[in-house]
């Protein structure tokens, strides 16, 4: 276990150094993504300026939910960048490389890439959290803990949808739709959705685990919320590993053992 953690840290360090090799590109992607998120958020500033409140939700709640969701998305992009293009790796036979090495295949695959713009998302997430008016140290600690669990749930969801490639041929189109669904639902006030839609947000498209629940936990400590978030992330991760391992049995080699950069 300790060996794998050390390996993971070495991978992240190498990825970061590789991304930093092109410093101007790295910085422009980071700053560009922060600006991109800020411009997108203007929608909510205009919305709440005009309508003031939406079923109990105010602008400060949106800052909080954006903070958590952008933080989790950014962390996943930085640490597990290949979770976003796993279906292409599977479909193009590029798993051969990871299968030929004595390391856990799934972990090695998803952690082998860093998306530079993720740094912009992560930093924006922290700034958005601070802009929500939550200023206590304990709140900040809960925010980071919530972001880590939300990142785990989100990464697991990505692994699950991309792993369908083992059965469908290439599920990248479906995975793109699932990513859109997860982000869109996570970035809207959960109070908009009722009945069956709310059930979907907590199960099939677990967007609540990326937005509403970690945001609630960051706002105030509650054992119930913590349990919900931890259990959700754990179940999704277990499911992701199980589905990927099952799918791997169906994988056909592409004879593509080559250097992965």
């Amino acid at each position: 276990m300790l060996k794998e953690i050390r390996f993971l840290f070495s991978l992240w360090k190498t990825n970061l150094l590789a991304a930093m090799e092109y410093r101007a590109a790295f910085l422009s992607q980071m700053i560009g993504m922060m600006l991109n998120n800020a411009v997108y958020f203007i929608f909510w500033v205009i919305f709440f300026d005009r309508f003031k409140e939406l079923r109990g939700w105010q602008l400060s709640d949106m800052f909080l939910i954006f903070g958590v969701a952008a933080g989790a998305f950014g962390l996943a992009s930085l640490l597990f960048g290949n979770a976003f293009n796993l279906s292409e790796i599977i479909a193009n036979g590029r798993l051969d490389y990871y299968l030929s090495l004595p390391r856990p295949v799934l972990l090695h695959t998803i952690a082998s890439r860093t998306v530079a713009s993720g740094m912009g998302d992560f930093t924006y997430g922290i700034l958005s959290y601070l802009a929500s008016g939550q200023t206590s140290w304990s709140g900040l600690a809960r925010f980071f803990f919530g972001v880590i669990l939300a990142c785990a749930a989100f990464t697991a969801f990505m692994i699950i949808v991309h792993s369908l490639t083992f059965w469908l041929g290439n599920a990248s189109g479906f995975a793109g739709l699932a990513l859109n669904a997860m982000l869109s639902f996570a970035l809207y006030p959960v109070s908009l959705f009722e009945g069956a839609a709310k059930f979907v947000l907590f199960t099939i498209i677990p967007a609540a685990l990326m937005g509403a629940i970690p945001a609630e936990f960051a706002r105030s400590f509650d054992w119930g919320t913590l349990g919900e978030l931890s259990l959700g992330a754990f179940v999704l991760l277990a499911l992701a590993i199980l589905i990927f391992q099952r799918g791997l049995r169906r994988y056909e080699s592409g004879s593509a053992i080559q250097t992965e950069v």
Partner: protein
Amino acid sequence: MKALKKYWAIFKIQVVNSLAYPAELLWRSLAIVLFLWIFAQLWKVTYAAAGTATIGGLSLHDTLWYLMLAETIELSRPRLARNIADTVKDGSIAYLLNKPYNFLLYHLSASLGESVFRWLLNAAFGGLIAWMLVGPPPDQRGWPLALIAILGAWLLNFCTSATIGLAAFVAEEVAPFEWIYQKFIFILGGMLIPLDFYPKGLQSIAKALPFAYMMYGPARLFVTPDLGRFAALLAGQLAWLAFFGGLLSLAFARGARRLAINGG
């Protein structure tokens, strides 16, 4: 006429290419259903909370059909900035430049071919979900006018996206320009929220900017067709097209001069 034939052939090849992966096309088209459903939840609650039948002169029915057309334009517009930038960075642009066609007209024909089915499917799925959510579409007599405006918006998008792509001749990474441009279309173009809902000052500024002619203009014309509105929109689109078309030609001419190709 002979010159047009080759671009027509490029257009047709791209149409066929876009149909090569039908499942992929279908999944992408379903995204509009998701977005419109979320918008419907948001605006139903907002209209109910506001307690009025219209906001900024638009009913809930108008707003949803406005957003349907805006989403269709956004999801079908050419995403060629990154394609062009990649060909500039890896040098493969040389293979396009030495062919007997104009580089920009080649991309125009190819992008149009790529967009046609995407547009049709987005409009079909988006129209279906909007109809189910808020009832039948707006007056059909306005549709031809809206179609012309959509074509104008598409051309404007083409010019700006291609210019961003050509920025790769001077910038290491063009993705941030593309992201921010897209978000300007979302906010100042009125894709996420009709510009009529903005405070008066911001509304005037946003309506004067080119983004409004790419998104708000055609979508607003679709829900409230009117000849006067159409004429003003068309004049604005032509003026911005002249500006961005000129900028694109200039960027291409300067970029081609900076191009250095090594090897074969």
